């Protein structure tokens, strides 16, 4: 059974390494400051006892006030999962650091988020639209987008 690592546990582990990275701890997910996201993920991927080496999905949700980017990682060794979240408050060119250098699986999923939600991932090697064509007007999965 893949058990979700409880937020409390993650926070206790992270607070030693990154004192001010965690913004808020939900029930089973942790809200991380976007600037410290790559460092946190790198730590989660490599640290002993954690080894979150497999990325399940990356997605983004539009809450009008802010965009929430959701990452879910699983450790195949310990069979545990963790959900990280980060927010960007602005609607105009929101930016989040890219994880493509850490997980190759993040590459296309970040492009997908960029295409459909309009969140730019900083440091991504090839930030192009993936599903829609160049020149498509807007980003369709935003709540305020309509034809």
């Amino acid at each position, binding site marked *: *059974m*893949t058990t979700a690592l409880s937020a409390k546990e993650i926070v206790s582990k992270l607070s030693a390494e990154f004192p001010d990275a965690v913004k808020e701890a939900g029930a089973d997910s942790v809200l991380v400051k976007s600037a410290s996201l790559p460092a946190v993920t790198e730590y989660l991927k490599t640290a002993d006892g954690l080894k979150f*080496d*497999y*990325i*399940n*999905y990356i*997605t983004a*949700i*539009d809450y009008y006030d802010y965009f929430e980017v*959701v990452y*879910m990682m699983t450790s*195949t060794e310990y*069979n545990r999962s963790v*959900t990280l979240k980060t927010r960007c408050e602005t609607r105009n060119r929101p930016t989040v650091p890219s994880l493509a250098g850490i*997980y*190759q*699986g*993040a*590459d*296309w*999923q970040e492009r*997908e988020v960029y295409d*459909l939600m309009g969140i730019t991932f900083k440091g991504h090697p090839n930030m192009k*639209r*993936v*599903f*829609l*064509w160049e020149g498509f007007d807007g980003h*369709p*999965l935003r709540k305020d987008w309509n034809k």
Partner: protein
Amino acid sequence: MTTTQEISLQTEPFVLNMGPLHPSTHGVYRMRVTLDGEVVLDIEPMFGYLHRGIEKLMEERTYTGCIPLTDRLDYASAMGNNLAYCVAVEKLAKIRVPERGEYIRVITAEMIRIANHCLAVGSMLNDAGALGTPFFYLWNEREKLYDLFEMLCGQRVLHNYIRIGGVSQDLPDEFLPALEKFVPQLHKFINEFEFFLKQNEILIARAQGVGVLPKDVALNCGISGPLARASGIKRDLRKDDPYSVYDRFEFDIPTAENGDCYDRYRVRMEEMKQSLHIIDQAIKKVPGGPFRAKVPQIIRPPAGEAYGHIEGPKGELGFYLVSDNSIAPYRCHIRSTSFINLTALRQMVKGWKIADLIVIFGSIDITMGEVDR
């Protein structure tokens, strides 16, 4: 260009556009392939030729109304998508499925796994140039599975059978006897089919050692399903994160070491046998009782989020649902297996010939509906 005169033969790579309507792109996939003669130097995959905006459409529909859309994601294994979506909604709304419903789900999910692998193996062999014969043999078996699905829900391809809280209707009386008769017959066919291809020198030459996907790359790319298991990652959500009633069955997870096309083919064949084994056990144990929990047509899950995933035929298929306590999902993200499994394609094909590119691509087993959504 270097300034010194080069005596050796000057060759220049050229760009070949493959797709979107190419015989072996399994739909409308497109690649921009850079070739040096026959050797693939680089590929640039391009998608979106079947991007129908399913995630957006789901935001306008009720939770039950979304089920037909999930059918059309991975149309080669529609039942698996239904199941994944319903698992996610049940997690979100905390609905318990009755025993009988769970058993029926397991049976149908394994049936669709067999149907999917029939198509996957057949089209891979077709891409290798076997001109239809193995494809048609496997399709004949798939056709028999279609008959059984039709008995269940009246549809051949897009079943729309699994509903939130159970299944749409009970098993017809003649279904289980028909399935019981079908299982040994399919087992016999699989053995026969494997016997034909085991000694085929050309298949071995074309597939063994071709398109090797190392274990660490596979893990880093987030690859799952038979593709990952062929590379030696022993991960199967049916065992590792059991949903439904999979923890009550006895079955193995076939894995292989090399991670080449031949191993993928072999893992799929083994998985078909294991699925038959599960069906065999499930038929004997199907309990009585209701097949569906009492769930209203229009449900309002409490505000929150849930990620439900299953081991689909192609790998981990997940739905990430966010609810705002209304009748439609606020946001639905589909963790599509095919899309993520394709991530490693570029590493796998570099340096191989153009003919291998096709076989490697075929061995990944994707459905464009799921890639583009």
